[in-house]
């Protein structure tokens, strides 16, 4: 049966997660999201749909935001991954996280890790975005609670703080 075959065939994925090399021996039909959540117990990225529509599983792979649910685990081999767990450093929230908290950019919190990761990646590359540009950048992330404006406000504020040197 399939599972037995899969169970016998394992693959070692050499991936660097949040700055730390993490070789993982796993089954090859896992998604990147499952590798992170189940093999590495990094449960910050969420599975909201499993079909790449909601963005709750967003991770950054080699500098690009991707849906972890659409990537097979072996495709992470040799890659560098940033997850929400790696955003805050030294016990201090990233300006994106700080602004999301302060300005009501989160409610139930389930989509929040995806927004944080998407936004951190975007703002590092686009330090001076307009509101419209931010809306395009987060259009792949669904939120059911906020209506988005508070998230947009938070990201505009975060961009400002990052420009003023609070970023890392």
């Amino acid at each position, binding site marked *: *049966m*399939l*599972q*037995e075959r*899969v169970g016998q065939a394992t693959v070692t994925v050499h991936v660097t997660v949040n700055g730390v090399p993490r070789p993982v021996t796993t089954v090859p*039909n896992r998604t990147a999201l499952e590798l992170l*959540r189940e093999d590495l*117990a*990094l*449960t*910050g*990225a*969420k*599975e*909201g*749909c*499993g*079909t790449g*529509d*909601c963005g*709750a599983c967003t991770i950054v792979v080699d500098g690009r935001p991707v849906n972890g649910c659409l990537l097979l685990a072996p495709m992470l081999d040799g890659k560098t991954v940033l*997850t*929400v*767990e790696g*955003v*805050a450093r030294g016990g201090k*929230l990233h300006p*994106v*996280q700080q602004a*999301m*908290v*302060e*300005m*009501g950019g*989160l*409610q*139930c*919190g*389930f*989509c*929040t*890790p995806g927004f*944080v990761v998407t936004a951190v990646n975007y703002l590092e590359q686009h330090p001076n975005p307009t509101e419209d540009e931010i*809306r*395009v950048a*987060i*259009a*792949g*992330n*669904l*939120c*059911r*609670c*906020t*209506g*988005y*404006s*508070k*998230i*947009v406000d938070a990201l505009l504020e975060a961009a400002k703080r990052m420009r003023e040197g609070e970023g890392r």
Partner: protein
Amino acid sequence: MTELKVVGKPLPRIEGPEKVTGQTVYAADMQLPGMLHAKVLRCPYPHALIKRIDTSKAKAYPGVVAVVTAEDLPPADRDPSVRPHAVLVEGEAIFEGQAVAAVAAETAYIAEEALDLIEVEYEELPAVLDPEEAIKPGSPFTRRPLEEIDLSEIEGHVTVDISAADDAEAHRRSPNISNRLHFVRGNVEKGFEEADIIVEGRFDSKMAHQAYLEPQACVAHYDATGKLTIWTPTQGQFHQRNDIARILGLPHEKINLVGTEVGGGFGAKVAPLIQPLTALLSMKSGRPVKLVLTRREDLMNSVPAPRGIVQAKIGATKDGRLTAFKGRVIFDSGAFPAGTPVGATMMMAACYKFDHLDVEGIEVLTNKCGAGAYRAPGMPEVTFAIEQLVDEVCRQGGFDPIELRKKNVCREGDLMPNGRPWPKIGLYECLEALEQSELWQTRHQAKNGGKPRGIGVAIGAWPGGMQPASAMVKMNENGTIKVVVGSNDISGVNTSFNMIAAEELGVPMHMVTTITADTDTAPYAGLAAGSKTLYSGGKAVQAAAQDARRQIIAIASRELDANPEDLVIEDGVVFVPGTDKSISFQRIAGLTMGFGSRYAPVVGRGGEVIRNQAPGTTAQAVEVEVDPETGNVTVTRVAAAQDVGKAINRLSIIGQLEGGVTQCLGMGLTEEMIFDERGRMRNPVFLDYRLLTALDVPRIEAIIVEVPSPEGPFGARIAGEPSIIAASAAIANALRDATGLRFYEAPMTPERVLRRLREAGKAVRQPVALGEAAL
């Protein structure tokens, strides 16, 4: 009242840092030692009898630990007519996707593979899919005739007086009707005779899904002592425990319900759904079991909002007085009753002072996924009808839409359709606030060139719920304060509780933390539904904090040798103004918790029963732009005023307002569960069941109106639900403004809008460029 130091400010959520770092543990994130993973086998027919099930091959499959069917359910007082109790199909399946069997295995993959090894023989029965056909004589039955339907949960969810309803007649009707309410006032035909303007129409709001981002999830562990622990996102952990005790025949004290963080609920995480099944698998296997629905399963098999079809007629005099309303709403509730007519029937006609009215609400069962509660259940559907009719009266009579509503809306003392007077409400004040909004003040600037633009107005009201609640406020060893509640936080309410306790105790926010404890340890609270958690639970927290304060003052009074009345608390210090007599909370903690301490520890208790509703009301305006070439509707501006009595936390209130409005914009623009001729949902993925994105939702001008409620904490009234009521109707009215056409179906997708524009000859590039073949 003295000046408020904490209450009324916009404060961030206390759990925010946990959420932005990904540390918050949702049920699907949990791992327990020895935990198994579950998958569910679902019925492939909308209506069928199960003739035979053989699970032997699945049970023998390596890695499978337990397989359950209805035969494995313990003897218990289950009522299969309600969704939570229909754990597994017992003989008759009544919607496609109903759970027939479930597997718990070492991995989710193994469980899924084992599903294919379960053999089921079905006998397909005629399916009932169209609610309007279902109530006609001779229609097949959705299921074999039922006994009485248990409405206890529904009545707990929304408290309206249904004594005025002549629902006895329902029992003489088709068994496909699960609920019927009827309210009459005056003589509606006479009311229409008095009218100079009469408009009517049939309006159809399609089934929508709460589409919380966190799919339904549960972890259950039935241990060797016979104790069942359930971790699940729930809006009402005591409510769920009570239900699960009955469903599985277990005593309440042997169940601990641990409400995990709710990744969006909006009504769909109130009643048990997958929890009893997960528990059953754990009872069978003796190991912890996790069941997480896929998005597809969740969209197809949870508890969405019903479809609402309204036939209604309204009359008005030529000077703008609404005289009569006659309306009937049919809710397609799918396979199980959801109780939607209980609130929505009365509220359909409740905002206006009609001398004559006749409103009827019918809940019809069909062989589709059973409906449940979705934020102000039924209200967007009925409001889509009545607010368009009121708008049409304005069009035909030449009335300003806000002025006409101000002239006709109910105020305190006016009668609701059930004959009871409205308590103090702020509907009129919401209209005044909307009138002052930037959107309304600049409405005439909107129409300058380009695509057609229009503005529409709609209003709504929701009575909200009531339920007793209790809370505990205790002092920690260092003088800080812990608030313990049993309600589940779905809205940021624990932050508001924190603020209430800080305010009452005279301490800064950072000295207080509020937690939701599990059902084993928390004081009782009702369900987080009907927008009542802050209204009722906040009152209990306030009382518990006042109780703790009295204890603190009593200790300080003896320690400082001062009269209790002379003592003041500020920033966690008790003092006598104008003297150097003072004692800190930290010192008091030391005096109450050490060896040989002289005083009892500070533990405040609050239990409250509120017996009057504090309805919430809203008035909203939406501006749209229509693309006459594609039929696409863009919402360009929104203003939404809501009376919340008192905004305990302004940031939280604005969040509730913007979120609710956005959900109803979705109902108006894109969100629709589409069913095929077999009752199967055709679009169970987020690509096709389309939620609005950051590109679709404009900034919302959220306006807080504060008409205090007599009983709520600091005058607060309900807040969560009213925001969702009005926007789909406002979009339709804005489309009428922009195009001159009425839109009778929601959502107003590009296809529907373009078709309507073409019928009226108002589409640009009529089927020339695309050609007829494109349609």
